[in-house]
């Protein structure tokens, strides 16, 4: 990796690798952190949002995730990808919050009113039906064990390869596969009533 003399200005952000950003950040270049935040914030926020099912909580936790990463960047030695490391932080924070929320109160999943749907092709009726379905799926995810929800979201929502999921969760790939199967079965059971009610699934 070529290191420009004045890295902040001389390279477009999208051409700098995560590893290079981390090195610069470790040397105190806070602009490199902004590149990393912008690059990963959407994936992290969506993961946390689906873990928690609450938009405001997701915003709060996601911010904590990035600030934790920022403070701990000195401990990041580059054995893993930065994104793997960041996901690990996010999963820890989200799981902790989820557990404390669950123990405080069995909270109903709020309506997805805060979602901004960017697909303009969906008609109003279809949108309503889809929306109901999504709420149902989110509620089912919230009812799963956090580990089960985690593995489903990483694989099926974010399409992260098994090997990376294994590294994030620090478990063998085989364990990821069996856990994922178990989790899907559990999710299916929760959605089964919905499907078998003869509703037309879009």
């Amino acid at each position, binding site marked *: 990796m070529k290191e420009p003399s004045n890295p902040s200005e001389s390279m477009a952000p999208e051409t700098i690798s995560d590893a290079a950003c981390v090195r610069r950040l470790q040397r105190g270049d806070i602009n490199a952190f902004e590149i990393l935040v912008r690059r990963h914030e959407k994936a992290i926020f969506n993961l946390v949002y689906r873990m928690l099912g609450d938009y405001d909580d997701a915003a709060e936790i996601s911010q904590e995730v990035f600030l934790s990463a920022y403070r701990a960047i000195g401990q990041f030695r580059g054995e893993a990808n930065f994104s793997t490391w960041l996901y690990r932080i996010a999963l820890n924070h989200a799981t902790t919050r989820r557990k404390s929320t669950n123990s405080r109160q069995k909270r109903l999943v709020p309506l997805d009113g805060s979602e901004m749907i960017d697909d303009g092709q969906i008609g109003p009726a279809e949108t309503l039906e889809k929306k109901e379905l999504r709420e149902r799926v989110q509620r089912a995810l919230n009812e799963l064990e956090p580990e089960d929800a985690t593995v489903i979201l990483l694989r*099926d929502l974010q399409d992260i390869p098994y090997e990376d999921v294994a590294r994030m969760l620090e478990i063998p790939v085989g364990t990821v596969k069996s856990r994922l199967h178990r989790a899907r079965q559990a999710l299916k059971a929760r959605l089964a009533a919905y499907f078998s009610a003869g509703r037309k699934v879009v």
Partner: protein
Amino acid sequence: MNCQEVQLQLSGYLEKSLDAIRMKSIETHLSSCPFCRAEIHGLSECIRQVAELPMVELPAGFTQRVMAHAREFEIEPTAWQRLIAAFKLTVPIQAAAVVLVGVLAVLLYQKDPRDRTVAFTDMTSEMVFAPSLIEEKTNSPATAPEPSRRDTKRESISPVEPAPQSVVQPRRPTAENIVLKDASTAPESPAVAKAEKALEKSLDERIAAPRRPAIQAQEVSTASESRRSSADALGIGAAIGALSRTPFRGAPYSAERSLSPLSEPSPDFEFVVRRRARERIDQTEGASGAAARKHAEADAPASAAFAREQIAPLASSVVEIRWFTVAPEHYEYFRKDLAAEANIESEKSTAAKEKDSAVKSSRELLIKVTILQPER
């Protein structure tokens, strides 16, 4: 394949991650089993529903808020974390660990079982000094010249500490161990020196990394290292360590270590002292050392005497120069302590007038103490 086997592999089947033979046999089973077909339909629906959950947009100003908070924090990686991140030191650390284990094994097994138990006690007390020793080394390259000055910086040797000797002397009795464990300046065998080199290298890079197991070997390597090291940036911790071991414990003066190695300052006082013979000095050791020695001698009086004879000749080869700064009002105490520790052969005030003015201005006095070998 029965339903149970198929069920377990449905996830793999849906992701097409199974081998061709299994894919085929599951397909065959599905075509004839409505139950499994329903199952796989439900599973694939699940996967699809999750996959189709829409991406949500971040709240407005998310990035800016994160950055604003980040700017309030300092990233605080420790010095050695920075170094490790920069150099990826895993290999040298492992090498150091291997060398360390070797040196420890040699040390422990060269002692007979009786001594071995006490050897552990020694190690614990020596641990206190490891950070300062490591620090010394770190600073050594920048300040290599001028040998006499460097001697004055040897942190853990009391001003009248007599005999430099090798820590690796196998038969050394424990009593002497306690008294002399820091005065390790004797020449060593090439093998030990080699091990030292390796250790020094990795330890240099790690700076004061909190890897305590290095301590015992560290002590060994100090033998010749301390002569090459110098003092410029020694920490306070090291100074305290040195003082607490000197006979000047609790006295309000300290060994001077902030002097530039390139220009010798003019001291306010110059002492020439002669070390007393070995036994005399033993009597003036700190109470804990004396107690420990007494205890150990009760166990092994014969070997203690034996070792003393061995050590004495080594001691005679050293002349040290030490520097102290002393507040003017404590000068008399200092002189008294010095007289108690060694025979003062000459004393001169090189700048008598300045001394008076120093007393008035309450500047600290700079005192040079030249330590001669004991008379035989």
